[in-house]
């Protein structure tokens, strides 16, 4: 890209991050240009994809990364985050992070990991963190040379998943398959653990609102007895814990019951939309469940699109056929849909 275009792009391009942990600030209502849908893919086939959807024409590019780079994404999608002009696509099986230009999806670099990555967070322009599924740690990566650094991994809790940075603090959700109930706070200045915050069982996803509060979705625990038979009596119900991102303290929590998996934040409307067997609505001011069932279906991913004031949800049709993205009005009325890849998980909205 020619340097002279950069200031222009910086001024005119607003990238809305949908996904959990992206900046979450609802931008001015500009025109939605592209929707990226990150699709997990099938475990056995490692066929995660990014679908690009043009809302104006209704057309989709089912495997937009492959179209842009002449090679498949190749891996099981764990997360995708937009930071600045880049998208960081985290894939396991291949255990790599594909770094692409957010507009063109052309490859900028590939970070090949020696661990099984689950999420990425940028710390500085030169340094990023990668959470590792199996060894309860964070790997520090060099974003200039696209490689792991020699720095010692940072120990966190069990099976770290989602990460979000606020200021110097990087918050890490330690899911532990329901056996861990902590969020680790890492000081990005010195790569040390600053604090460990107790939340509900199985913290999996983190979303950040405009007030720098973190909405931690705790999946709870699905219990099995010593014979691996289901043991519902020992299930731990899920919850949502709200953390003040500036002070690293728990503000409040909501016992949701069930086993919630994802959340989308509507800052202007002060509503959070939670996938927990159905889609329920949480009042972001009172921290109460406002509506148990906005949409009486479950989905594999959800995001709020502020420009349109609509919800985008991912409907997975299993792991061997394409899923569907469905667009809902905030009253729960489905208004449109489009085909996406296998097991849609994360939405990103690019506006002009």
């Amino acid at each position: 890209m020619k340097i002279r275009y950069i200031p222009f792009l910086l001024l005119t391009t607003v990238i809305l991050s949908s996904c959990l942990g992206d900046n979450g600030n609802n931008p001015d209502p500009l025109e939605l240009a592209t929707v990226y849908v990150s699709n997990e893919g099938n475990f056995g086939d490692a066929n995660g994809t990014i679908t690009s959807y043009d809302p104006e024409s209704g057309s989709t590019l089912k495997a937009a990364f492959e179209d842009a780079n002449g090679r498949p994404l190749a891996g099981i999608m764990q997360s995708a985050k937009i930071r600045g002009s880049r998208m960081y696509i985290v894939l396991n099986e291949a255990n790599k992070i594909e770094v692409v230009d957010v507009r063109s999806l052309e490859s900028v670099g590939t970070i090949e990991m020696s661990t099984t990555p689950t999420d990425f967070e940028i710390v500085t322009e030169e340094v990023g963190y990668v959470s590792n599924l199996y060894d309860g740690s964070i790997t520090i990566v060099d974003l200039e040379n696209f490689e792991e650094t020699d720095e010692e991994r940072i120990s966190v809790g069990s099976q770290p998943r989602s990460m979000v940075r606020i200021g110097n603090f990087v918050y890490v959700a330690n899911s532990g398959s329901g056996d861990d109930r902590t969020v680790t706070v890492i000081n990005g200045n010195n790569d040390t653990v600053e604090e460990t915050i107790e939340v509900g069982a199985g913290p999996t996803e983190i979303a950040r609102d405009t007030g720098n509060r973190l909405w931690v979705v705790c999946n709870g625990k699905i219990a099995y007895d010593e014979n691996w038979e289901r043991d519902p009596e020992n299930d731990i119900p899920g919850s949502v814990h709200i953390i003040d991102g500036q002070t690293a303290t728990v503000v409040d929590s909501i016992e949701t019951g069930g086993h919630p998996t994802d959340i989308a934040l509507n800052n202007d409307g002060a509503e959070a939309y939670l996938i927990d067997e159905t889609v329920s609505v949480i009042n972001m001011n009172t921290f109460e469940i406002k509506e148990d069932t906005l949409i009486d279906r479950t989905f594999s991913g959800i995001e709020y699109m502020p420009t349109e004031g609509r919800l985008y949800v991912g409907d997975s049709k299993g792991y061997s056929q394409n899923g569907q993205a469905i667009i809902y009005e905030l009253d729960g009325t489905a208004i449109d849909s489009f085909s996406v890849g296998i097991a849609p998980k994360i939405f990103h909205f690019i506006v002009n």
Partner: protein
Amino acid sequence: MFLFFYQVAHGQTIADTLQMEEIEVLATRILQPLTYQPTNVEVTDSTRLSFLKGQSIGEVMATESSLFIKEHGPGGMATASQRGLSSEQIQVLWEGIPINSPTIGQTDLSLLPANIFSEIQLSSGAPSTAFGGGNLSGALYLRSDWEAGKYFSARQRMGSYGQWQSSLEGRYSTEALQVSVHSMYDYSENDFEFYNRAYNRTEKREHNRSEGYNMMASIGKQINNGHWKSVFWVADKNNQIPGSILKTDSKSRQEDQALRWLSTYERQIGNAELSFKNYLSRAELNYFDFDMDTRSFSTNKRWMVSSDLKYPVAEQLLLKGEISGALTGVVSSNYPIDKSRNQFSLLANPEVMLLDHRLRIYPALRMDAYNDFGTVVSPSLGVNHELLPDKLFLRGQLSRDFNPPTFNALYWGQGGNPDLKAERSNTGEAGITITPEQFLGISSIKLTGYYSQISNGIRWYPGDDGIYTPSNIEELNTKGVEAEIKNTFLVSPGWQVSIQQSGILNRTEIMTPRFSGDQAVGNQLRYTPQWKYNASFTLQKDIFKGLIQYRWVSRRFTTDTEDLRDSLDPYQVLDVSVRAKKRLQALEFTLQVGVKNLLDANYEIIQWYAMPQRNFNLSLTATYHL
């Protein structure tokens, strides 16, 4: 192709009808020559197998049969798919004993070296009445009944990417006593180069070493009016598991060990022929993945006894039947407690010859009672009509077959479903066999069409808690055509040429939606090629013999929706082997050179599992004839 060779050679045609009839067909349990069978049976005989020593049964079947072998590359798993169905739905038999793993319901054909078997028979459409459940698509029958002989042989083979095989075999037979030993040690680094399309670069396969040992020993003895035989087979394989080509740091490995012991006793009492079988086996499958802290151990033990009776009531009627019982036990770190299965089976499968033996009818009825999921009754009716004597045969079969749920499906700790029922299928097929005596060198033409509906198909799906659980959810149908043509010529002076071609067309589809909005309905099943074509060309003169094998497999879709984007390209593979055999008094030397994948094709049979490009092998065999 056969026309071309006819014009070049215009030699003497050999009608191998007689040769075909000499083959003892075992895969269908119908004691009739090939041409009188109700279904198609493909035979890879000992002569052919002698050329393919050093390969696994998976590799042999990929090039020699209508099976689609799902190979994960050298050192990786290879399983068979027949008529579009899964590897759990084809029964693999060794001397009539089902050897599919009771835990996973399939056989890894990469673990079976071809050189310990004397013959392979593949029967598409062999019904459950023949050998019990597990064969919705048919049966793969492995024989180890060696011909009489007195010799000792040592063989050394080496090849690309660190292949190293040493084998010893010996046979000693008299009228009263038969002893044979076949053994093989194999080692390979399997560190072949491949093109990694995920990164657009050439790489070398790592952590892919395999090492194994197989030994099969048998002793047979004439006892009064009977014959007793005992075969002992031990197998031990240790494989590093590299995973897909996307993985670069796998530390997984797998151990497969098996001990099998089969004893048979056959005796003539008047006109009746009685046989008894006693089979014991113990197989271990252990898997270790240190990254995921996985240590999976499973051991299965099996004891099976059977008694078989054949009694010719009249020239037109042969009464046959079998009574059998089996105990299977599995100890697995993946099950909460040890599990077992008891099975009792009764079979009546008479053979009826009418119209001066030109119309043969094969009715059969089988009952299998299992202690864990109930009783299954399987009927079948086969027919063969010799329309023109020795030249034209019409055949067909109707059957209702079943496939019992595997131990893993029933009892897997997290997700096993003890309420599973057996998979069932209704199959109809019809075929024609032509054996012209002198026409363009054609010695046989076979054409078969089939249609099968499968119900209660078992499929694993993730539940709300993310745990995969099997259920009887799948309803599918499979239909297709199988064709085979063989040409054989004798060309002066002393050249012998034979050509064998076969092709399959298969369509396998999900019939009913498995969930709301299921897009799989009406689409070709995943990893199921619609077309496959095999051709082989054998040329022999004096001490030299050459074999060229070619196969082409059509596109396979990796998802349910036949989306070209989610598919693997068609592939073609050409293998060439040349052998020279020279005898010096009692010593015989055989030198064989082979090139596999001569066209240097880049291909994947299973997504992200690279197959080796052009590679070479060389073997030298020394045989001392006693």
